[in-house]
């Protein structure tokens, strides 16, 4: 497996050719009345052609904002992108591109699938119009050719009767069908990069299975790279090659999917995996991450996970942890346990984690912390 982190190309220099998307120290802030929200706070990763990257995190961890920043879909202001941030896509730095050039890339070379297919499709145009518009714009083809392309892409995503469906409006379709239309639209220009933001969250399990299998098949067929944003570790396990785990705008862990999900190194990831209900834990309590995600206006001073972390010690309150290398091939985790200072505590933590995974962990009954209000 290839490493997740880029080969540390010097600032301002393009990454090696094989790397399709290289995000370096991405910071996106929102200025609101109450202060500044650091939605994305120094995220770096890279993605090779044809590979799949999963971004995992709870709501509010900044995973969608990361995607929107890469697509340059955020309104500035209120959003602000740190001038030092760089996003290299296919050999170009795209954060500094003028809007008209960005428009040529967006939808054409990189496309996005949104979470809610009903709200992201225009209700007053037929799905054919919406797909054909994009094709006509980017591929400079005539109306007829664009329309044919729309039918073709609907066929590609397995919609029966595409000739009839293409003339229908979004409300005439079911949720799974609409998500297929979203995918068809994203694929219509044969993009090199596909960003799917929670593509199956709004769908039922059986439909989710359909859509995931479809994404997998299509990615293999078209050899495009895929960024899959989700909060569902199960979806990640089945779909992606590499994973980054985000918490309050920071990457807390990254590595290949086997590394991150089988041998997690950051306490947050460990907690997430422990809290998944399973048969083995029946009859016992689930181990839960205590407390809630901190308010972005009031983040803990050093380690942002420290108030909820079962393994924290005084160093976690004073020194902000870096992404420490904890293994081969770009494996990183943001935790002091992987520094020389914390190394002594790691075996015990690992042992606790193993036990919690196997049986569920006993925690105090009333483990809710007072509100973040």
């Amino acid at each position, binding site marked *: 497996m290839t490493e997740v982190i880029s080969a540390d190309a010097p600032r301002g220099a393009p990454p090696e050719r094989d790397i399709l998307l290289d995000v370096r120290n991405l910071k996106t802030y929102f200025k609101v009345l109450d202060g500044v929200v650091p939605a994305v706070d120094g995220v770096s990763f890279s993605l090779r052609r044809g590979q799949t990257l999963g971004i995992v995190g*709870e*709501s509010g961890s900044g995973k969608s904002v990361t995607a929107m920043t890469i697509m340059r879909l955020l309104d500035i202001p209120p959003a602000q992108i740190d001038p030092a941030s760089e996003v290299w896509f296919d050999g170009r730095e795209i954060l500094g591109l003028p809007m008209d050039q960005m428009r040529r890339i967006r939808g054409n070379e990189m496309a996005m699938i949104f979470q809610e297919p009903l709200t992201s499709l225009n209700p007053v145009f037929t799905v054919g119009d919406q797909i054909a518009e994009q094709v006509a714009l980017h591929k400079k083809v005539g109306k007829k050719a664009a329309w044919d392309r729309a039918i073709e892409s609907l066929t*590609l*995503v*397995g*919609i*029966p009767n595409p000739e009839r469906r293409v003339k229908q409006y979004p409300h005439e379709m*079911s*949720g*799974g*069908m609409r998500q297929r239309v979203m995918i068809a639209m994203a694929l219509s220009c044969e993009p090199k990069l596909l960003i799917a933001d929670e593509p199956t969250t709004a769908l*039922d*399990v*059986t*439909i*989710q*299975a*359909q859509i*995931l*299998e*479809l994404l997998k*098949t299509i990615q293999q067929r078209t050899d495009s790279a895929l960024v899959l944003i989700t*909060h569902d570790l*199960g*979806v*990640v*396990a*089945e779909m992606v090659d590499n994973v980054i785990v985000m918490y309050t705008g920071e990457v807390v862990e990254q590595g290949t999917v*086997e590394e991150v*999900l*089988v041998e997690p190194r950051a306490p947050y990831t460990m*907690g*997430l*995996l422990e*809290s*998944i*209900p*399973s*048969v083995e*834990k*029946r*009859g016992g*309590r*689930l*181990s*839960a*991450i*205590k407390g*809630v*995600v901190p308010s972005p206006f009031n983040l803990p001073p050093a380690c942002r996970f420290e108030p909820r972390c079962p393994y924290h010690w005084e160093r976690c309150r004073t020194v902000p942890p870096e992404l420490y290398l904890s293994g081969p091939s770009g494996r990183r985790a943001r935790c002091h346990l992987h520094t020389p200072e914390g190394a002594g505590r790691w075996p015990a933590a690992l042992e606790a984690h193993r036990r919690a995974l196997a049986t569920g962990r*006993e*925690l*105090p*009954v*009333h*483990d*809710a912390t*007072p*509100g973040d*209000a």
Partner: protein
Amino acid sequence: MSATVDHGLAAPKIKGALRQRPPRGILRARAILYGILALVLVTVGLLLVVSVLFRVKGGVDLLVEIWPAYIVAALAYIAPRGYRDRKLWAFGLSLVIGFVLVVGAVVMSYLALVPGAMGGTAAGSAAPGASGAAASGAAASGAAATGAVATAAPAGSAAAASPLASGATGAATTASGTIDGNLAFGLITLALLFLAFGVPLLWGLIRERSFFLAAETRHPIKTAQEIEAETGGFAEITPVSASGSGDTAPALGLPSPVAIATGAVDPLVSVRGLKKHFPILGGILRRRVGTIYAVDGVDFDVYPGEVFSVVGESGCGKTTLGRTLLQLTPPTDGHVVFDGYELADVDPDDMRPLRRRMQIIFQDPFGSLNPRMPVSDIIGEGLLAQGVTNRKERDKRTGDALEVVGLRRDYSRRYPHEFSGGQRQRIGVARALALSPDFIVCDEPVSALDVSIQSQVLNLLLDLKRDFNLTYLFISHNLSVVEYFSDRIAVMYLGKIVEIGTVDELYRNPRHPYTVALLSAIPIADPRRRRSRLVLKGDVPSPAAPPSGCRFHTRCWLRERLGNPEICATEDPALRPMTGDAHHRAACHFAEQISESAVAETVETQDVVETAAAVE
């Protein structure tokens, strides 16, 4: 079609039935009678104020003059009381009032429209006083009929009061033999109102006669007081010593299958043939153009102390099942027996003591808490409805409930927006718990929450179940949560249960092709166990037009594998016991054909891209 009682469940033991929900005609009659009462009171009040404040001569005389209105008002107060107890005299009383209204309307209209008749009546009547009284009584009560309108549209009440006053004045002047234009106008208005409201009232009363004349039902009828006495009043919940006494792992309290089989344990809730159909209204006249078969004949038992889960995709009717079971929406057909009391179409007033014992936790913690109410009111509302009128007492119980769910007592003054999603769901739990229920319907309580919060709430629910001896009906679409959380599971598809059994049976040995597909669709968070899935074709068909025969046959992989046998499309399979375990039942003609190798072969041959080829 209905006669097949082949659900393999014992008939529920019934202690008593509740009184039936009053029919619509009765409810309307009740509203009108209370309207009459309200209007008379308002009129009298106005008359008093006007005559005393403005020293209107004869004002007090007028109060005396309209004495028949007082009688009508008293009757209007008494009759609805009689309805409560299903007394025949209440029906008769209503008829009398309705009769007075209509006759009054006719007489008044006649008097108003035919000027010549006025003198004739005054002179020709043997008892002018009586006729005047009848007329004025009719006027008062007739105008009171406008009260029924007024209750519907409060803004109209002031307007309605003034014609009444003029009507009453008119009636008074009738006795003295003079008449003017105002009077005629007022009377015609009244007459029209009688036609609009008096006639439907009479018609409704006549039609709902059976409500009073119904013979004893199959079971002894219990009043709310009797139930209250039998089930005991409602105890306070005490915050359990928050010690968390670690090692006492909650024994998941499923009565052993043997106990169920021999009937040693009576089910807490029995559902038999429950149906809920919603009409699809269309056209200008809002006529019924179709039916949504949301829940279409469901049978199961929930035993005390167990977690019974209902799983299925959205639109399969699991939420409707929960709501119908609690009688939050009246069922179309079928029975629900809760702790021996039959709840089919019962009077909401009589339901109250049972309502307390069956609570619900809603799915959306953002939508189910009123943003304008502080937490104390949100939780206290149920207590108030159950008769805890003492503010201090209510606050104490609210605080207790908050503490039990792990929130601080002083949060009760805060509003819902001040809480995070997980805390809101805790408030939802506290609201259910404040009434110390026995049975809680948990309608997707964790699906709106993040993974880490989800496990907190699940832990809380398990703790409460252990501490307060609760029984849960757990509705969810998340199969991994259900596997962890429940004792027994029912899988629903398009309004019917397709498979039911204990967790172990269902997950290890699924006997319905839909269950197999559902289980196969769960993504597992372990890349080492990555596998191919069995992907179902197309979408769930519309519950307004369920497929013939087996409802699953349009998407069924097993049917395809067996070469599309005819029986699947023609005959609805019964929920029959599977070999090995009598309590594991599945509704499939070919349940025995399911095996691991069959599934594996199907997975290999399926074409993923084509799976959207749904039957449209």
